[in-house]
């Protein structure tokens, strides 16, 4: 069906044809025609944020929790530049987004016109792909192609920059028939001979471990189901990165907890001592490997990843399998069933014996207190009291983020939204807003720090406008705790600019934004206060006053190997555990 319409109408029609129900945006001169087209329909609901950065993070939360593409609309110049952090965040964490930016009319491009910036130039390196639309004839194709590129292969953000004259221009709209792209066709089926080699290696393993990541979440809930099946079939232990939490259930006996810099003792030592590592959709990030030359020295490695450039980037692997996790896992499960290989039972038994010994160290244990709320305890209580509910968790960035990852447990994928790769403070509140829109009935909690929350606090106003009952649970330690911890470990405890001075009264702040404020500093009252938060049908800011100088352990200090972790019962001098070379690293 072809129809004549304006460029602005094409944008809205294409969103409708892509089944986009929510669009996060902020208006301005260069997108007024699109706002006008939005006004005249009611399929696509526009969510007005309070800063464009908030729009992008909201779209990320929406996308990550629903498996759909998140969509953003911003104006030219400052609208586009405000979106840059969110776009970079989505690129790092492989989140599918389409971000439409207005641009000055084509004949003014390059003239330093009012609110002009080189949007495609600025966003070239922080998007998966971007387009400047110069002819109305190209617009329908580009709009649909953007959705294809954002969501196929390794997902990522795509920018479409549309000059204002193109938004007014009339042209023929039709929805492209095939959803293929002429050059971009990522491999989704893994090479069967490599998968066979992987199964063979796995069947002979004496000390295997599954190292799973965000790629499993990206591949959809079906991939998580297949992962569970394969892990159960093989009987092997399973750990995951920060980005992969929920793909494998935390309550399962074969679960080792998160690995990496703040991962559990058992997960990291299993990675260090394994003889076969099965990486499914993780990217050997430096928070995982620590010191590369000491990373899992005795293992042979299998790596399943849809992006060939993730393979052999940081760590050399013996069996690379390029493909989508769901497809490859399906083949693996099928082959394992067909062959039902004779695994080395005694070896696996002694491996589990070893793992259980490591578990016995109880690396997430901490010294609780009955006078002051320990942040770990606060997250534990939050987890216990929300168990069995339809809960989604987002976070800001810092110690609270790691405590959330360690003490809040996930049984399902898409329930955990965090900024992993870029580590963007200010992500959690707007992300929670996006999640709440995708899941109106769910309990959505942003586990926050008092410093991070102030980075996008203006989005409280968005929550009020759309009556989104998001819960902001601030672990208020009055420090940029993660920075303070590093200053303690690396800079002799000189807390340069990391104290959260002049904080607002969060309870009054909540009230000012038309939401409910709660403060709790007494461990004995914590449960009741949390229940009050859960049962409040409006947005809540919970100011949870916690121990100020608690460190986030376990920790692999920078520059050290997995078997050199510091645990909570560490009694040495925290100020000397990191050497000069480790200090250079981030």
């Amino acid at each position: 069906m072809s129809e004549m319409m304006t460029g602005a109408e094409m944008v809205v029609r294409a969103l409708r044809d892509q089944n986009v129900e929510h669009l996060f945006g902020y208006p301005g001169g260069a997108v007024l025609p699109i706002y006008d087209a939005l006004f005249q329909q009611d399929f696509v609901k526009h969510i007005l944020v309070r800063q464009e950065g908030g729009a992008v993070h909201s779209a990320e939360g929406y996308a990550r929790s629903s498996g759909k593409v998140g969509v953003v609309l911003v104006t030219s110049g400052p609208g586009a530049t405000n979106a840059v952090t969110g776009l970079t965040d989505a690129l790092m964490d492989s989140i599918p987004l389409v971000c439409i930016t207005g641009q000055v009319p084509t004949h003014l491009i390059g003239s330093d016109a009012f609110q002009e910036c080189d949007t495609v130039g600025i966003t070239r390196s922080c998007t998966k792909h971007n387009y400047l639309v110069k002819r109305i004839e190209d617009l329908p194709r580009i709009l649909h192609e953007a959705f294809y590129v954002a969501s196929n292969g390794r997902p990522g953000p795509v920018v479409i920059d549309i000059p204002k004259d193109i938004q007014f221009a009339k042209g023929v709209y039709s929805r492209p028939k095939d959803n293929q792209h002429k050059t971009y066709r990522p491999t989704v089926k893994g090479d069967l001979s490599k998968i066979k080699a992987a199964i063979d290696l796995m069947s002979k393993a004496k000390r295997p471990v599954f190292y799973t990541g965000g790629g499993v979440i990206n591949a959809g809930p079906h991939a998580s189901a297949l992962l569970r099946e394969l892990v159960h079939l093989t009987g092997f232990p399973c750990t995951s990165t920060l980005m992969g939490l929920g793909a494998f259930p935390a309550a399962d006996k074969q679960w080792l907890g998160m690995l990496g810099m703040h991962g559990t003792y058992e997960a990291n030592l299993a990675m260090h001592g394994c003889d076969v590592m099965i990486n499914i959709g993780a990217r050997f990030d430096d928070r995982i490997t620590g010191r590369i030359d000491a990373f899992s020295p005795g293992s042979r490695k299998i790596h399943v990843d849809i992006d060939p450039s993730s393979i052999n980037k940081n760590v050399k692997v013996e069996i690379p399998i390029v493909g989508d996790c769901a497809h490859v896992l399906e083949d693996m499960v099928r082959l394992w069933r067909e062959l039902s290989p004779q695994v080395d039972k005694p070896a696996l038994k002694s491996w589990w014996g070893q793992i259980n010994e490591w578990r016995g160290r109880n690396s997430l244990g901490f010294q609780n207190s009955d006078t002051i709320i320990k942040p770990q305890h606060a997250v534990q209580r939050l987890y216990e009291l929300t168990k069995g509910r339809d809960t989604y968790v987002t976070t800001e960035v810092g110690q609270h983020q790691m405590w959330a990852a360690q003490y809040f447990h996930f049984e399902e994928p898409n329930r955990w939204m965090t900024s992993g790769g870029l580590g963007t403070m200010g992500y959690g509140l707007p992300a929670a807003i996006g999640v709440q829109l995708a899941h109106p009935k769910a309990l959505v909690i942003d586990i926050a720090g008092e410093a991070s929350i102030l980075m996008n606090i203006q989005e409280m106003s968005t929550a009020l406008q759309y009556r989104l009952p998001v819960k902001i649970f601030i672990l208020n330690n009055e420090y940029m705790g993660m920075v303070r911890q590093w200053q303690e470990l690396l800079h002799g405890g000189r807390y340069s600019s990391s104290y959260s001075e002049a904080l607002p009264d969060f309870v009054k702040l909540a009230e000012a934004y038309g939401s409910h404020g709660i403060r709790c500093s007494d461990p004995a009252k914590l449960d009741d206060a949390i229940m009050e938060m859960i049962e409040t049908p409006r947005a809540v800011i919970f100011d949870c006053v916690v121990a100020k100088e608690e460190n986030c352990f376990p920790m692999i200090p920078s520059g050290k190997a997995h078997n050199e972790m510091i645990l909570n019962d560490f009694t040495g001098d925290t100020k000397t555990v990191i050497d000069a070379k480790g200090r250079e690293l981030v």
Partner: protein
Amino acid sequence: MSVSHYPAVSFDQTVRRHTLSVIVDNEPGVLSRIAGLFSGRGYNIESLTVSETEAEKHISRITIVTSGSEKIIDQIKNHLDRLVPVHRVVDLTLQGESIERELALLKVVGKGDHRMEALRLATAFGARTIDATVTSFVFELTGATDDIERFIKVLGPCGLAEVSRTGIAAMARGSEVM
């Protein structure tokens, strides 16, 4: 050079020169996308040549000469290949001996003996004289990079005043096509 103080022990660190042919959609920004990839990730570009090769299909061929360890070269190819407008990436160096040519324009300014010597050298190298005045010559030489470099070197003392080079165009030998 890797700046990490943790050597990636498992990778072969020998640096080699590779010539890559990249077939792309000739759309706006494709060149900056590729150049940005190299600068953003710290890869070297020794030579870069771009031209439309199939105008009606809007296809261009980009020839890139780069250098790096085997791991870096693989990364470069994978990163190029995942760019949306890229059709194909071929590593001509891995395909066996390929043909590589570039063109140089060289201006020699001077009088007397130098002038005669420059002309003699040009003949010896098989360069064409495409402009001449009483005080100058412009030569054109097409050849492999080594030939051009040698020619530049010997012309130096003869009043070589200006050089303009195209960068490399390359193709595999034999009947194999991209």
